[in-house]
Every structure is written in C-alpha cells, then in structure tokens.
C-alpha cells in the first residue's frame, strides 16, 4: 500500500500533517542510556566483567568480559534507536543518521554512568559490602590505563575516556543496525553471532575438528592461547554472512513434500531417516570424545525429565513444581535395588531388572502426588507439588529413614548397567542407553499427543469444567499425566544413579525442578525439538562454558523473564502454543483472511480453496 516515501516538505497550511518524519527522540535515547548505565554497572558489580576478561574470544582483542560490557550500550543503542512500529496502511518511518545518533547518545550516557562505579571502586574500599568493586574491576573497565592522582583522588582519566568512547561507538553501532535493511541486518547479525558462538564454544569446535580427523583446521581457526585468530574470525563471518544473504528465502516445505508422497514411498523415507539418524547417533560420542559425551549425558538426562514434565505441564496443564521428587524416587529405587552398599535391602538386581520396579515406584508416587491435588486450583497445585518435592528431599535426607535411604551419606556403589558382558561405565558408552531412552520418550510424547488421551489433556488444559461436562473423566486423565510424567522422570533418575554411581539427597533439590521447568519454557512447551534445544542450551552450555557456571542461575532468571516478556511460547514453539499465547492477534488475522460464509441453501459441493 505504501508509496515511495518522498522527502517531506513543509505541509501546506490546512492540509494533513506531513508524512512521518524520522521519529527518533533523543531525550528518550538518553533515558535508555541511563537504564543501560545501570545495567552495565550491575553487570560489572556482579562480577561478570572482570571474571570474563580471562576468556579470549577473538585473539587478541576481544575477551568475553569486554563483549559483555559493550553489549550493553550496543543493545540499548539498538533499542533506543528503534523506529516506531509500522501499522498496516501507514508508511514506514524513515531511518537514517538520526538513528545512529540516538544510539550514540544512549551509548554515551551509558558510558557516563559507568564513571560512577569506576571512581567509587578506585577511591573507596566498599568490598565488605560490594564484593566485586575491586581494583581488578577498575583495571578492566579502564583498559589498564595509568591513573592520575589529583589531590588524593584517584581518577583514571585516560581509561575512563576510552570507556566512554567505546560505549559511544557501541551505542552508535547498535543504532546503525536499525538503519540497515532487513536482509543485510540479518546477515550481519548472523555472522556476528556465529563468530561469537564459535569463539565461546571453541572447545566444542576444536573437539569436532579433531573428531573428524581434520586437526589442521584447529590451527587455522584458533589461536594457541585461546580464542579465534583474526583469520578464523574473518572466515567464519564471511561464510555465515554470505550464506545468510543467499538463502534469505524460506526453506522448502519439507512437511508438505512428505505429505505428497504415498504410503510405500513414505515408509521408505522413514526407514532411510531412521538409518541415518542411527548412524549419526552412533558417531556422536565417538567424534566428540569423552568430555563432550559427559556433557551430552547430562543433557540427555535432563531432556528425559523435560519430556516428562512437558506432558504434565505442556499437555495436561498441571503446573507441577515438585517434579524432582519423581526423579529422586527413580534414583533412590535404583540405588536401593542395585547397589551392594545400600543399607537396608540388598537384592542387588541388575540395572535392567530393577527398572520395572523403579517405574512401578514412580507410578505409585505419581498417584500419591496426584490424588490430593486433583481438584485443586492451578496455583495451589503449584505450591502443593512444590511442597511435595521438598518433602521428598527432606525424607530422603532424614535420620528417620536413614536405614533405608542412607540419610545424608546417601547410597554409594551403584553398578553401571551392562549389555551382555559389556559394562557401560564411560561417558561415551553411557550415551547410548540415554539417547535410546530419549528417543523412546520422544516417541511416547508424540504418540500420546495424537491420541484420545492427548485430546483429553488438551481439553482439560483449555477448559476443565467443560471437558468434564463433555464426558472426560478428569480423575483418570490427570492421574495418567502424573503417572506418565513420573515414569519418565524415574527413567532419568535411574540413569543418573547408575551413571554417577551414588545418590545423595542434596542432588534432588527444588533447583532441579526449576531447571527442568526453564528448559521446557525456554525451549518451547509441547514441541519435542524445542525441548531438546532447550536442554542443550540450558544444561549443555553452562557445562561447556565454565565461566558462566557461577552466573548460571542469574542468567536462567534473566532468560526466563526475557522469554516471558518477549516470546513466551519458547524458542521453538509448537504451533498450538503460539496460537494460545497470541490468540487475539491470530484471531484478527484469521478474520481478515477467512473465507466468506457459505449459504446453506446455495451450498456448493466444495468450498473454495482457502488460505488459512
């Protein structure tokens, strides 16, 4: 609808107001800068800047510390310079140098605010309160520049000037992102993202190169001291940039083409797909080596739990915050049944022989937890299940049940599972039972989603009283959800117990429940692929990036808040979830594009083809 924008001239009097000029408010930008300054101060005071300075991303200029620091003015510059949203029928606002200026203003203010913590840390010792306002922080923020001493007051003038200049430039760049057209912007951002990712995950990438026997590539990309070489940086950036530019169009509709095939052909492709997947799965631990396999094992265990919780929350809508209890039940049952060191009973079954009992115990605990909460409201259910989770941990820890569960000492000497004569006790070997169970869990998820009980769960989640009025037995449906979720968690627990070889009650705190919750929220509830991505990001990344470990929960929290505000359906949502959360918007769009109603008495044989 929009015509080419003409340069706005002064409107003739009495006429409509001129077309929207470049609508960027510099005062607003300054306000954003203040917020940015507060954020940057926070980031420094919390300790991230000096800590991360040790991680080299791009040798020799960019460490993670400086990246995190300058990301703040960059981000706020971007936000400050964002043109207002264009509604349908309006002409898009023009972008230009003013956006860059706005970004620069935001960055400048951020830098100016940062003067405060620097000066304070340089001159006063507040470390009994703010533990990170240390000389190290000052040094990082002022680039190690010499300080001037004026009348007893330490003023790192040169360093501060550099800092402010850096923030200004970062802000301007952030603003500039708004100016570039969408295609270029996406390509630039993709390139930058990949450079940073490769720099951060250099261990993973190096291991991958070594795993596929291309060791030479390691030297090409990475510097010996850590971080990408400039050459490597350029290669990665150019590669991703070009690819993104070229393939800006949407990917081919795989699903549609699959539907177009007939039964026999479909089956053929499914078998081929399974075969290829099997090969890849087999190769993963081989290629990635022991350290990575260990990480993947942990990811797999959490993924199992996430798939189970996905059924309880994502399908049935029961906010179970005490999910760790089932995990604990699985682990402890395995420990008690298989370990030679378990205090009370010592049947010493094998892992596989114990598994049915483990699942049985989980099912029983699912019923125990589920029955009292059947008629409770959602919020009450959350807190009660939370309580149950804590009760489980306390009981496992207690002196009272010490004879069975070992109290604070836990249970040790849990044997690893074995297949035939082969004992699976190294991380790469352990990967296989885990990945098999993950696939089983994924299949179960899919099978239940497209079934009678899956529909019943959806109905209960959407409108419980109506579902009941429609004939759905609420009791059995909810209890089934709990039982299935508990069973999957108990699998994870069993694997965890035999992998670690010991269980201690403090491994089963509420934090585990929350992490699993974060996984499915961030990854995308209801979508198996989303949950997998979530597990990799939430559990895998902190293991890979040890520097982040200390700030793990800080980032989880920030991530949760951010996701809920920006994209509550998760990174890879299921279509249903997107629909639920954006119902109003989608309803409007559907109304705009819907087919007109067909009159009953003028019924045609088939309605016109519709675009949904």
């Amino acid at each position: 609808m929009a015509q080419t924008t003409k340069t706005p001239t002064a409107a003739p009097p009495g006429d409509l107001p001129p077309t929207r000029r470049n609508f960027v408010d510099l005062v607003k930008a300054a306000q954003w800068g203040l917020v940015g300054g507060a954020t940057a101060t926070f980031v420094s005071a919390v300790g991230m800047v000096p800590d991360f300075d040790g991680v080299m991303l791009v040798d020799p200029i960019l460490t993670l510390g400086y990246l995190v620091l300058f990301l703040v003015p960059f981000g706020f510059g971007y936000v400050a310079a964002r043109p207002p949203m264009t509604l349908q029928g309006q002409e898009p606002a023009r972008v230009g140098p003013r956006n860059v200026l706005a970004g620069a203003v935001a960055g400048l203010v951020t830098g100016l605010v940062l003067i405060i913590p620097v000066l304070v840390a340089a001159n006063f010792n507040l470390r009994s309160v703010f533990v990170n306002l240390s000389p190290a922080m000052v040094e990082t923020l002022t680039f190690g520049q010499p300080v001037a001493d004026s009348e007893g007051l330490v003023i790192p003038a040169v360093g501060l000037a550099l800092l402010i200049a850096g923030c200004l430039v970062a802000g301007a760049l952030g603003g500039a992102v708004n100016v570039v057209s969408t295609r270029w912007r996406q390509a630039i951002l993709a390139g930058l993202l990949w450079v940073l990712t490769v720099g951060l995950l250099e261990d993973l990438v190096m291991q991958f190169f070594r795993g596929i026997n291309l060791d030479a590539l390691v030297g090409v990309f990475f510097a010996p001291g850590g971080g990408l070489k400039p050459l490597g940086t350029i290669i990665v950036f150019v590669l991703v940039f070009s690819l993104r530019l070229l393939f800006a169009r949407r990917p081919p509709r795989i699903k549609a083409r699959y539907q177009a095939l007939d039964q026999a052909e479909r089956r053929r492709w499914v078998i081929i797909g399974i075969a290829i997947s099997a090969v890849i799965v087999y190769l993963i631990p081989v290629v990635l080596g022991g350290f990575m396999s260990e990480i993947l094992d942990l990811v797999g265990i959490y993924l199992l739990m996430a798939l189970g919780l996905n059924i309880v929350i994502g399908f049935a809508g029961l906010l179970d915050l005490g999910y760790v209890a089932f995990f604990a039940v699985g682990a402890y049952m395995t420990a008690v049944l298989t370990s030679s060191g378990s205090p009370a009973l010592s049947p010493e079954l094998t892992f596989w022989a114990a598994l049915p009992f483990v699942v049985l115990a989980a099912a029983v605990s699912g019923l125990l937890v589920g029955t009292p909460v059947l008629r409770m409201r959602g919020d009450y259910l959350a807190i009660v299940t939370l309580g149950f989770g804590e009760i489980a941990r306390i009981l496992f820890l207690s002196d009272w049940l010490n004879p069975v569960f070992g109290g604070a000492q836990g249970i040790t000497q849990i044997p690893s599972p074995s297949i035939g004569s082969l004992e699976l006790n190294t991380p790469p070997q352990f990967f296989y039972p885990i990945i098999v169970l993950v696939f089983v869990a994924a299949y179960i998820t899919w099978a239940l989603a497209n079934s009678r009980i899956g529909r019943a769960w959806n109905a209960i989640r959407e409108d419980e009283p109506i579902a009941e009025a429609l004939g759905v037995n609420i009791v059995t449906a909810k209890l089934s959800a709990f039982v299935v979720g508990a069973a999957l968690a108990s699998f994870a627990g069993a694997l965890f117990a035999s992998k670690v070889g010991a269980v201690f009650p403090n491994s089963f705190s509420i934090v585990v429940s929350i992490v699993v919750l974060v996984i499915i929220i961030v990854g995308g509830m209801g979508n198996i692929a989303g949950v997998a991505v979530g597990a990799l990001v939430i559990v895998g990344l902190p293991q890979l990036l040890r520097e982040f470990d200390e700030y793990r929960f800080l980032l989880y929290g920030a991530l949760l808040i951010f996701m809920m505000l920006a994209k509550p359906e998760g990174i890879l949502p299921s279509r249903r979830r997107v629909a639920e959360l954006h119902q109003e918007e989608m309803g409007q769009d559907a109304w705009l594009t819907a087919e007109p109603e067909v009159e009953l008495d003028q019924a045609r044989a088939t309605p016109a083809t519709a675009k949904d």
Partner: protein
Amino acid sequence: MVAEQGTPKRLHFDFVGAVLWLVRILAILAVVIGAFVSLTSGRLSAAAWLNFVVIGIGQGAIYALIALGYTMVYGVLGFINFAHGEVFMSGAMVGAFAANSLAQAGMWNSSPILSILIVLLIAMATSTLVALLLERVAYRRLRNAPRLIPLITSIGASFFIQYAFLGLFGAQTRTYPALSILDGFITVAGLNIRYADIMVIGAAVVMMVGLYTFVERTKAGRALRAVAEDKEIAALMGVNVNRTIVLTFAVGGAMAGAAALLFGVVFRTVFFFSGFLFGIKAFTAAVLGGIGNIVGAMLGGLTLGIFESVGPSLVLTGLGIPSAHQLKDVVAFLALVLVLIFKPTGLLGERLSEERA
C-alpha cells in the same frame, strides 16, 4: 468400537472420595495419637510446650507479614509473586549493612530505638524499591497474560534477584549486631517470653492492624479491593488501576521490609538464599489462610508458625519418629496439604477477589 450409552461406573467417585477420606482419617489419627503420647509421656513440661507455642507465634508473625505481600498481589493481579521472598531478603540484607554501620558508629546499642527505626526505614525502603522494580520491569506488561506466564516470570525474577545479590554482595552470611535491650525475658504465668518475641509480635500486630484499616477504611484501600474484583470495571469507575497496582506492590514490599527488620533483629543471620524458603513458607501461610484474604494471611502465618514449632515435637516424636526437628518443613507442607484437602479455599476462604466459575 465406539460404545453406546451405558451405565456409568461410580468407580472414580469412590476412588478419589475414598482416598481423601482415608487421608483425613489417617491425619486425624496421627495427630491425636502422637499428641496424646507426647503429652502424657511427660517428656516436656506444660511450660515447655507453651514455650514452643510462643516461639511459633513469633516465627508465625514474620511469616504473616511476608504473607501479606503474597496475598495482596494474588488478590489484585491473580498470580503468585514467587519473587516476594527475595523482596524480603533484600530488605534483610541491606538492613544488615545498615545495622552494622550503625554498630560501627556506636549507635546501635546506645540508642537502640532510634537505630531500629533507622534500619527499619532502610529495610522497608529497599524492599519496596525491589518490589516496585519487579512490578515495573517484569510484571507490568504481563497484566493480561494467562496466569501461568507471570508465575513463571516471577520464578525467573526470584532466581535473578537471589543470584544478583550473590554476585553483588558475596556468599557469606551477614549478621546483625546483637541488640542488648532485647536480651532477657519476662515471666508470665510460669512462662518465659523473650523480649525479642514480644517486639516481633507487637510490631507485627501493629502493622497488620494498620494494613487492615488501610484496606477496609481508606479510599485507596477501597480502590485496591475494587481492582481486585474486576480491573476493567474499576477503571470504568474512575480508579487509576496502574497506580493501585503499584501501590499494592509497594505496600506488600513495605510489609516484607518490616518483616525483614524483625527477622534480622531476632534471628540475626541473612544470606542470599534466606528469602527462598521463607518465601515458600509465607506463601504457604497465605494459602493456608485463604489467598487474597488479608486476615487470612495473618491467621495463616500464625497457624503455620505454631504448627512448625509445635508439630514435630508433639505429633512426630509422639509417633516414634526420631529427629523430628529435621522434619519441621515437612510438617509445614503437610499442614498445607491437609488444610487444602479439608477446606479447599483455606481457613478463612478467599476474599479480595473471588474465583469466577
């Protein structure tokens, strides 16, 4: 085959109903037997039991103050503000810094009343500030989102604040300096009641009465109740919904700040994780009393405190469970579950806003 109509099985009615009745009977039996054994065994004197009760009331008063914040936010906005425990913790922490500074300046024990007031103001200001920040940054845009979303956001906020405090202030526990005027106790009817407990209970009562009056008698309180009932209609009646919601958070935060000061002065140690369990317990108290109900929050807090304090010794030890004090939290949560089974809307039912069918 798809079935035709048939006679319904009353199976599931029997199952759930029967299970719940079983739970009720077991609970009553356990409590009665345990209490009976404990009381008749003479293990502890009557004074000792009453002492437990008093301690429980003191603890419960703090729960009650924190619970007020939960219940008000739930009543007005309809979701559990998980981060409220951290609102409490932030006040307690900053209060600790203030108290220690005052102690260093020699004021802490020389002018205790003034010092307490100063730290009270600082703690309340901090908590209120954190609560307002929460509302502005995390919750404001989610006012009309399905209830699950702000709940999850609050979980994220809770973790964020905890670990932000960890990062900013470090992991060590902070201790309030001892306050000498609180040493000692008075003896009433053979019962030793610590000055500290008296102060806590007294202060809590004052604040609760104040809040109740505020909600029931003032214009702003009326606006609060109106917004809790129906945001849109309240707006149509001329109530500034935004300001009311901000006020809700502010008042809840202030209450939590007061609780923080009381907690700090009596229990003395704070660290970044202190808010978490207190928060859960306080929310339990709010639910116990009937969520959205201010008097309910107070009652729930006191009840929970007493259950926690008396329960392990009374019931669990009586049933022969060793080291019952470890299971203090179990008692608290079981109390919640049982109340919700016996009376699903809590002790006093729900008030600030009714659930619409």
